[in-house]
């Protein structure tokens, strides 16, 4: 089993005449804590969408755990072990919080293994996930009854329920308070100890710097830096991208 979990080669994506991603090369090792930053519109979400299959890249390839992803639909990539949380939380509004967690269990975990989870096991796992993210009290509520941070936690819980090898957390901390950010960070750290690889996409520099062991910077669809976080943020191009000319 090789060390590389996710390998992106010369990935390109255009929307009409606009080049969103211009030949991105990126390798993510198993268990790595990768931070991904970049100004708005630099292509971060497009990259996530290409990895998860929401968008099809025109050029280049994405390989996950040795398997090329090019022909696979989103749900198949999820079943392979890629989980992502959405920037704007997208829970299933007609279902309770617990039922929201059942979906990945029924459709990803159960679809993968030959040993399907029983109803009791599913219920127990939902309870456990809710406890881990701190949403036990809201188990039977609808998403419209949740606060901002609770929605973010539900979003992460749903990604976790899919039992992923790789979690891409897409701006899960936007708009949260200082202590709330710490809560999410703690959660992400606990995932690392469980062996899950995490790509953290954030604008909150404090969080990115404290979490990442490696930092990648995207500007206008190109990767301009990739390495140790402390060195990367002192990179002149990175400074220019954030502070302007």
């Amino acid at each position, binding site marked *: 089993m090789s060390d590389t979990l996710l390998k992106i080669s010369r990935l390109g994506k255009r929307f009409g005449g606009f080049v969103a991603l211009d030949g991105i090369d990126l390798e993510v090792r198993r268990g790595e804590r990768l931070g991904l930053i970049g100004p708005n519109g630099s292509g971060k979400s497009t990259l996530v969408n290409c990895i*998860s*299959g*929401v968008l099809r890249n025109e050029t280049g390839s994405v390989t996950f755990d040795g398997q090329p992803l090019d022909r696979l*639909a*989103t*749900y*198949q990539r*999820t*079943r392979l072990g890629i*989980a*992502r949380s*959405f920037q704007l939380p*997208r*829970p*299933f*509004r*007609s*279902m309770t919080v617990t*039922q929201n967690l*059942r*979906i*990945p269990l*029924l*459709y*990803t975990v159960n*679809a993968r293994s030959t040993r399907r989870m029983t109803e009791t096991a599913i219920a127990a796992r939902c309870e456990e996930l809710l406890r881990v993210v701190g949403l036990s009290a809201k188990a039977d509520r609808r998403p419209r009854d949740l606060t901002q941070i609770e929605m973010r936690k539900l979003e992460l819980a*749903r990604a976790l*329920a*899919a039992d992923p090898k790789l979690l891409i957390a897409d701006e899960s901390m936007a708009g949260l308070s200082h202590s709330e950010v710490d809560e999410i960070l703690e959660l992400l750290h606990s995932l690392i100890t469980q062996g899950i690889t995490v790509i953290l996409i954030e604008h909150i520099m404090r969080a990115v710097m404290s979490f990442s062991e490696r930092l990648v910077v995207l500007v206008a669809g190109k990767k301009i830096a990739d390495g140790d976080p402390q060195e990367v943020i002192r990179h002149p191009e990175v400074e220019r991208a954030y502070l302007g000319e």
Partner: protein
Amino acid sequence: MRNSTFWIWTAVFVAVIFALSRVVTNDYFFFAAYLVLQYIVLATAWNILGGYTGYVNFGVAGFFAAGAYCSVVLHKIWGPPIPVLILVGGVVAGLIGLCMGYLTLRIRGVFFGIATLALAIVIQTFITNWDYVGGSRGVYIIRPAQAPLVGSYIQYLYLIMLAMAGLSVAIARTIEHSTLGYGLATVRDDEQSAEASGVPTLRLKLISTTLSGALMGMAGAPLPYYVTYLDPASGFNLSYAVNAIAMPLIGGTSMWLGPVIGALLLGTIQQWATVTISSALNLLIVGALLVFFVVVAPNGILGLWEVRRRRRA
């Protein structure tokens, strides 16, 4: 509603209806009841794709008439018993649903709705130009003199439709509580999010269109024997779509009981209006009720009841 409760009530309902059929001698009752039961099937079938999965089907008539015209063809060739006709009608309509789904489900919901209408009209145009089944002039079907189980053929048709109504409701209810039902709900709520959670949305949508179409085709299979004269204008009438949509939306789309309530209510009102006033008026009533409920009470009668229940608690 717990399983045991549901089956007890179903048994009671079926027993009462069956007893009525033994007691009532006026054939008109069976004519009217057949129609209402037919609408239970259509409304329930529509709701599987509409209420559960979130895709609007305006081409109800296409599937329904496909079942009816399959029966016409088989009747001319060989004349098999109705259960066979129902099976064939279901399979053919199901295949149509599968093809249509495959062509159109990759695109946004609104376009899907329009495409269903387009499909129904294309099918209608083909049937209108097909002389073997009578073309635009229509075709006459003679009811067999003897009915298998009971006395009059109308009573037999009524029992058949009763069985189908029960079957469709049972299917709907089973879906509701199953993994498939949860999956369909995620397709309705947010397809992309569903895919991200591992739901194979395209496959589920195809299952939904096929099943929904098949049930509609099955409901249409006995039609030629019921009306004895079938032409494309009546078989493909847009009123089937209005009814199949209005009944679940008025009754409530969240569970199997909604389409049943809607069908019973609207079906009865329409029968009464046709007899007492005019048949054009009953379509006006359906249209007006549809618009009214959709604007004022979007969750239907079930929704209103739910609100009342929560206020009391």
